[in-house]
């Protein structure tokens, strides 16, 4: 009995020790580990075959090909993104990552998408403009650009006033959850990135519609650990080549983001 | 030679002195009953004798071998190895049987002889069946304890103790967890054992039981032995007032 326990203990210790050792060495060929939210179409999501894909990931793939690196697609819990980046488990966040308001926390590449925050409501809803949101329940993704645009330090006075007119601003875990709430009627409107909105409206044209009023405009960039300009410059250089080759625009068209991208024009 | 010698045992729990200088010797083939009111220390005495409790001072000797020796008023126990051997000299039957619920009757009896005494399994099983027959419950060998009556469980417990081939058997209130009509079952078993010259020490509060089975009765009160002798003498014609008072209350 004692022996058995000793063996079990030893196994546990070895299993604990192995990854520590692995962490030390490894990575012979250069890898780029991209952290992304895999529930964020069209920038990063799972396709019908169960593979991770999306506009950002395909551009990252092209960039890695340019550099001769291997791309590792690492889905992460959005709430843990800072810990993941700082501890080095991912090299960058490349996932419709808004620059505005985060300039001090990350080293950003130059913007590649100009993204606006829009409002999605149920089709046939009586909400036609931002003014109609007064007294309504509005949902945003927690820790998202929409939330930043409405309540963040850099929010415009107009947006702060708009936010104050809501009955309630609900923070939800992800966009899908927010849209489920919209379906169920527990929220009246959802603020989100225009790209995500277009994707969901395209899939459910009979269910959702988008207000023509825009809450804010913002830009997407690739986020690196603060101070890691070396990696940033390398990736940016390769990105430029991908843009020059026309591959970037081709991918933007594939994901119907040609209106949003701000490179290659 | 005496099978058991207890000399000048003292035992306290905290400030409470439970045993105050008790000496008893038990000869081979003798049946000794220990009587006394609750709180008199008789159970503690039994627990000290069976080494379930360590005594503060005094010595404990089985078959001439020292389990504990009194050194300057402190009991010093023999090395573990010796105690293990000495342990084989005696068995104990508990008030509430303490059979192992997950073992069958037969396994309850044979497990310790086979795995502790390392005896041949077949031989032990044959012996166990003979013991069960002697107890009148040989048909219950594959039952679990929960399927038996209290009297049957106590008989299994006695068989379990006997299977270890002890020279001396202790009983701790063997009938007090049983219905009165079942007491006679156990009494019959004890008398059979006495007839076979089994040495026994029985802690009980049943006067009739003590009178019927024992050669000698020891009466304890407040940590002392107040009277001892033949059952007729101690039970029917005691010298001590306290014994008399206790017996009057019981009757």
């Amino acid at each position, binding site marked *: *009995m*004692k022996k058995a*326990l000793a063996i*079990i*203990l030893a196994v*546990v210790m070895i299993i*604990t020790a*192995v990854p*520590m050792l*692995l*962490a*030390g060495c*490894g990575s012979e060929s250069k890898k780029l*580990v991209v952290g992304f939210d*895999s*529930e964020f*179409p069209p920038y990063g*999501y*799972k396709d*019908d075959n*169960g593979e991770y894909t999306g506009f950002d990931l395909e551009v990252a793939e092209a960039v890695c090909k340019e550099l001769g690196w291997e791309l*590792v697609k*690492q*889905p*992460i*819990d959005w709430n*843990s993104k800072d*810990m993941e980046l*700082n*501890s*080095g*488990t991912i090299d960058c966040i490349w996932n419709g990552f808004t620059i505005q308001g985060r300039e001090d926390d990350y080293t950003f590449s130059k913007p590649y998408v100009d993204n606006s925050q829009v409002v999605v409501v149920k089709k046939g809803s009586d909400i036609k403009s931002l003014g109609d949101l007064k007294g309504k329940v509005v949902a945003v993704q927690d820790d998202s650009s929409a939330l930043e645009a409405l309540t963040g330090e850099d929010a415009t006075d107009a947006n702060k006033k708009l936010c104050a007119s809501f009955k309630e601003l609900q923070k939800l875990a*992800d966009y*899908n959850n927010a*849209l*489920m709430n919209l*379906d169920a009627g527990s929220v009246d409107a959802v603020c989100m990135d225009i790209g995500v909105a277009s*994707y969901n409206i395209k*899939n*459910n044209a009979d269910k959702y519609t988008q207000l023509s009023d825009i809450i804010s405009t913002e830009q997407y960039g690739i986020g690196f650990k603060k101070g890691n300009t070396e990696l940033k410059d390398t990736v940016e250089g390769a990105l430029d080549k991908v843009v020059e080759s026309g591959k970037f625009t081709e991918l933007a068209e594939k994901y119907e983001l040609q209106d949003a991208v701000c490179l290659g024009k | 030679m005496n099978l058991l010698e207890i000399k000048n045992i003292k035992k306290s729990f905290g400030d409470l002195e439970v045993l105050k200088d008790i000496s008893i010797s038990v000869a081979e083939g003798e049946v000794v009953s220990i009587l006394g009111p609750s709180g008199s220390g008789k159970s503690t005495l039994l627990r000290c004798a*069976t*080494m*379930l409790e360590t005594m503060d001072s005094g010595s404990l000797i089985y078959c001439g071998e020292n389990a504990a020796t009194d050194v300057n008023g402190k009991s010093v126990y023999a090395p573990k190895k010796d105690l293990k051997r000495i342990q084989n000299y005696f*068995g*104990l039957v*508990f008030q*509430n049987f*303490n059979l192992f*619920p*997950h073992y069958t009757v037969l396994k309850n009896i044979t*497990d*310790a002889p086979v*795995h*502790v*005494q390392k005896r041949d399994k077949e031989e032990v099983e044959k012996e166990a069946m003979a013991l069960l027959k002697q107890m009148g419950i040989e048909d219950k060998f594959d039952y*679990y*304890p*929960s399927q038996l009556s209290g009297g049957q469980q106590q008989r299994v417990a006695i068989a*379990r103790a006997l299977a*270890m081939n002890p020279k001396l058997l202790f009983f701790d209130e063997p009938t007090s967890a049983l219905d009165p009509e079942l007491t006679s079952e156990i009494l019959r078993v004890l008398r059979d054992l006495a007839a076979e010259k089994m040495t026994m020490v029985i802690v009980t509060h049943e006067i009739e039981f003590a009178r019927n089975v024992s050669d000698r009765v020891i009466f304890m009160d407040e940590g002392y032995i107040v009277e001892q002798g033949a059952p007729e003498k101690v039970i029917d014609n005691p010298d001590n007032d306290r014994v008399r008072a206790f017996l009057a209350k019981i009757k």
Partner: protein
Amino acid sequence: MKKRPVIAVFVFAALLVPALFASCSGISGSDVNWFMGVVYQLSNGMWASLLLFGCTILFSMPLGLLVCFARRSRFKVIELITKFYISIMRGTPLMLQLLVVYFAPYYIFKISLSSEYRTYAAIIGFALNYAAYFAEIYRSGIEAVPKGHHEAAKVLGYSKSQTFIKIVFPQMVRHTLPPVTNEIITLVKDTSLAFAIAYIDMFKIAKELSAQQSNIMPLFVAGLFYYIFNFVVSFVMGKIEKRAKRYE
């Protein structure tokens, strides 16, 4: 044999619930391909969930026994340390513990982490957490064995380890089966918490499918998986419990 129809009813009911939701949300019953596609993708994630589940059981149950011994140690220091460990494991969210196990090597020792470590960290985190719960369950089981059984064993000459293995352990197992079953069922569902450190389990895949299809149904299919899994667990544990109860 009599039980078969009962099982069929449960499974049928479990299948019916998502089917009803499906019909409400306008997916026709003939869309079998869609359903099979979701099931196929989820079953890939099921392996990750099963791996985490299996390894957690494999390590936490013996580790729990060890913790239980330490908790019952005669040495006050060991007892206190164990008590503290158990109170932390039970008193803080499992998700936080997973984050600590995964990120602590970097934040405390500045060891850069490999991505493979996620799987190990998830297993370590779960095993440490569940060991604490199992330890307390075992302790209650050990303490439920009457003192008299220890004494009977001692008088019969059993050594300490013989007493534990032959007398105490089997009775402890019997006493602790119902709460252990509870913990195992909770564990099946808790595995989805591992995504806090980006361990991709079945529920994460269900959420991804849900986001990709802008459709809630994959979550219900995942629920069906969990239900069936737990149904099997309950069934197996019920059998074991019945066997252990035979001497009562």
